[in-house]
């Protein structure tokens, strides 16, 4: 039953000397009377493999019980913990403090309603966007017989749809978007990506004309200024700029614009 090791296991990283990291947080709790926006600094010992999830929880447990932030999966898959990390929107749970240097500045995502400190209401924004874009499969038949074989789909197409379906609605693309900062009704790259996703899906009964009706104006695809920040910050590396350009080209071709 013995067999030789296929490859030599990687040795664990050598121990590094401990050092301090300083985390500056933009704090404000609109629920609390007298609260004003301010920066607050916390210092803590940096540990090997420390993420912002670990660091912020340590601050809350040992230094400041009132600090607000949102984590759920702490594994980079649920999208709860997006915040502005040293000026750039990203997922805090999978960001190592070591990758940021000794001074870290954290702020809540802009555009979204602030709950308190680093916690923002992305859920409300995303639901409104989904309702506005009717972001669900519009089935061709109302009732399907679920005891029969499922409808077939080419394996490549399923994979292509999944590529766009990987969006976790974290809000990074919206927070990084110039248009979203200026137009409250802009559906953002997250919304346009959904249109691209449902357009690709043969189970959705909607036609191109239906989709164009939803996004064929400045709150939709013509609001995009092609700054490409959405594409750069997407934690799932979704091809957002490509999808937006594609939807826009399709629309121009269909005689809109």
């Amino acid at each position, binding site marked *: 039953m013995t067999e030789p090791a296929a*490859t030599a296991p990687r040795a664990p990283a050598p121990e590094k000397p401990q050092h301090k990291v300083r985390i500056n947080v933009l704090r404000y709790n609109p629920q609390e009377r007298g609260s004003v926006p301010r920066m607050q600094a916390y210092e803590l010992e940096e540990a090997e493999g420390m993420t912002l999830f670990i660091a912020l929880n340590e601050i809350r447990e040992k230094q400041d019980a009132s600090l607000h932030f949102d984590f*759920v999966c*702490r594994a980079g898959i649920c999208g709860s913990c997006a915040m502005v990390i040293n000026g750039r929107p990203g997922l805090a749970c999978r960001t190592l403090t070591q990758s940021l240097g000794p001074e870290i500045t954290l702020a809540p995502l802009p555009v979204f309603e602030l*709950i308190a400190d680093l916690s923002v209401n992305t859920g409300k924004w995303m639901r409104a966007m989904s309702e506005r874009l009717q972001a669900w499969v519009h089935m061709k038949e109302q009732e399907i017989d679920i005891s029969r074989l499922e409808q077939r789909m080419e*394996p490549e197409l399923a*994979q292509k749809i999944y590529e766009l379906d990987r969006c976790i609605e974290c809000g990074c693309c919206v927070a990084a978007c110039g248009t979203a900062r200026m137009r409250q009704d802009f559906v953002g790259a997250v919304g346009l990506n959904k249109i691209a996703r449902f357009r690709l899906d*043969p189970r959705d009964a909607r036609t191109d004309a239906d989709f164009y009706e939803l996004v064929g104006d400045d709150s939709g695809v013509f609001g995009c200024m092609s700054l490409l920040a959405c594409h750069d910050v997407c934690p799932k590396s979704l091809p957002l700029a490509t999808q937006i350009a594609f939807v826009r080209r399709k629309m121009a071709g269909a005689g809109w614009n």
Partner: protein
Amino acid sequence: MNVIYTDVLVIGGGLAGLRIGIGAKRRGHDVIILSLVPPKRSHSAAAQGGMQASLGNVVKAMGDNEDVHFEDTVRGSDWGADQRVVRMFVDTAPKAVRELAAWGVPWSRVRKGDREVIINGQKTTITERDEAHGLVMQRDFGGTKKWRACYVSDGTGHAMLYAMSDQAIAQAITVHERMEALALIHDGSRCYGAVVRNLVTGELVAYVAKATAIASGGAGRLYRATTNAVICEGIGTALALETGVAAVANMEAIQFHPTAIFPACILVTEGCRGDGGLLRDAEGKRFMPDYEPEKKELASRDVVSRRMEEHIRSGKGVKSRFGEHLWLDITLLGAKHIDSNLREVKEICHYFLGINPITDWIPVRPAQHYTMGGIRTDYSGASPTLKGLYAAGEAACWDLHGFNRLGGNSVAETVVGGMIVGEYIADFCASAESNLTISTGLIREFLEHEQAKLDALAGNRGGEEANLLRVRMQEIMMSRVGIFRTGEELGAAVEELQSLLRRSRNIGLRSTANGANPELVSAYRVQKMLRLALCVAYGALTRTESRGAHFRHDYPRRNDAEWLHRTLATWKSPDDTLPALAREPIEVMQKELPPGWRGYGAKDYLDHPDTARRVAEVEAIRSRLAGAGRTKVQEALMPYSVLLPERFRSPNERIDEPFSPPAPAEPRMATP
């Protein structure tokens, strides 16, 4: 007094809760779903590798059907499951996959022709059938005879949750986000809804409903090392327990997943091993075949986790500054496979370990993963003791998993449970049975009681620190109520948890905000969690046998003669420090599959006195009905189909079991 009325109140916005909501709304009832977080952030999204459903499309799944899925699940449960519920589940799982397919889940699909796979460490070519082309794909998972896990790359739960949540939005189902239920409103026999706290403003609201369904997931955060999301604290389960009327069952049955990355405790899917990944020790040796020659890396999770810990204890673990671990090797699967089918795994390895699993081995060690126990319900999801209360998904114990759950059966259960329980709730709400007469005095009493508890916490300065109590509880659960248990350790755990519970009555806060105050949240939750932890530890202490994930060094054998029982726990008075435990027998004579060897793991167990008689009965029925077809035989062994809602009773079509008249010759093909 702030009161909101609805027909169905669902506590929890993951897959089970959303599906209950969709089912009830479709039948014309008003629904409000409460969720701690936006529903798409629920822990359902964390299911990576797949959902068990016997579609039988791929060539390695040929011959799969409800019967095989049933047997795998019952063996996996170590004969603890309710076999009628397992039957209902395996019938409905294929329908759940197909419903989700219609709602937009981009299930990975079969391509006809040759493909290369890794089986038992060897490259093998298998040939998929032409007639399977474009149907939903299956991969191998632990503890199953056939390849049965339907999947979407390794983001299965994410894709399912998004499609489900999108359908809930399409049906205009109301979701109240960032709302937390603090107590169920009841009069000792009827549940009327819940007292709910707004996590942003701190305001209390009473929700009054004909039916209240708890679908709040598991309680992994009772443990220090868990794969569960931070919101999986078992609060929904504790709400039922705190009524003193509803029972929780089998809380001692806690599953540890073999492959949590070390030390961050983030799950990497069982699909890694299902697709051919191997476990290796400090010497690089593949060790599972020595322990489990039949199923090797793909024995059930309880068995693999125990073998891994045993191997570490024998000195074969890899030593690191954080402690010891083993290796998961998926390098043999190759870049192409990992980049398309295990990409979340690759991302997790990149961000949390700084390694690339295409070339590097992944450090892993078992971590708490799943709560088999939960709120005791009957097959319809209803609490037998508190009318109007329902539960589904991981929060419930209707009892699909017994003492060990198979990989891919939980994400399947969320949807199937939601489908079945949703129908039963709709039936209930449509009948006069559900008519409510409630005194506003009762609502006020519950609201005031909860407010008083919060005020007491907020008003106490310098008392116990909630966080310290929580951490200590998690450490005790980890070190004394973990994978290997003994009476001595469990006794010590019960003692100390009781002392923590007493101390938790004097928690004080340092931060004074009334609204969204994370310290206050932590304070009231730890009081509830300690009660649940005591149900786990005390149940484990009382159960003097080993079954499934519950393993006692001092009682290493499964003991059907004395312990073919569920453990029921109730919390009679808020002042108690221990639950009242009772035993609910599991009847051998009604079982379709009488207890025996699981096909992996330990071979010595003590039989129940009825087992031999039932085995003989089952054999007689099988030989009498030989050739009568599998459905007839099953019906004679253990009738169950009347328990299924009518909507889900029809048989499931497969390539090898076509309906007549056959399905339309060539279903619409989608072109890329």
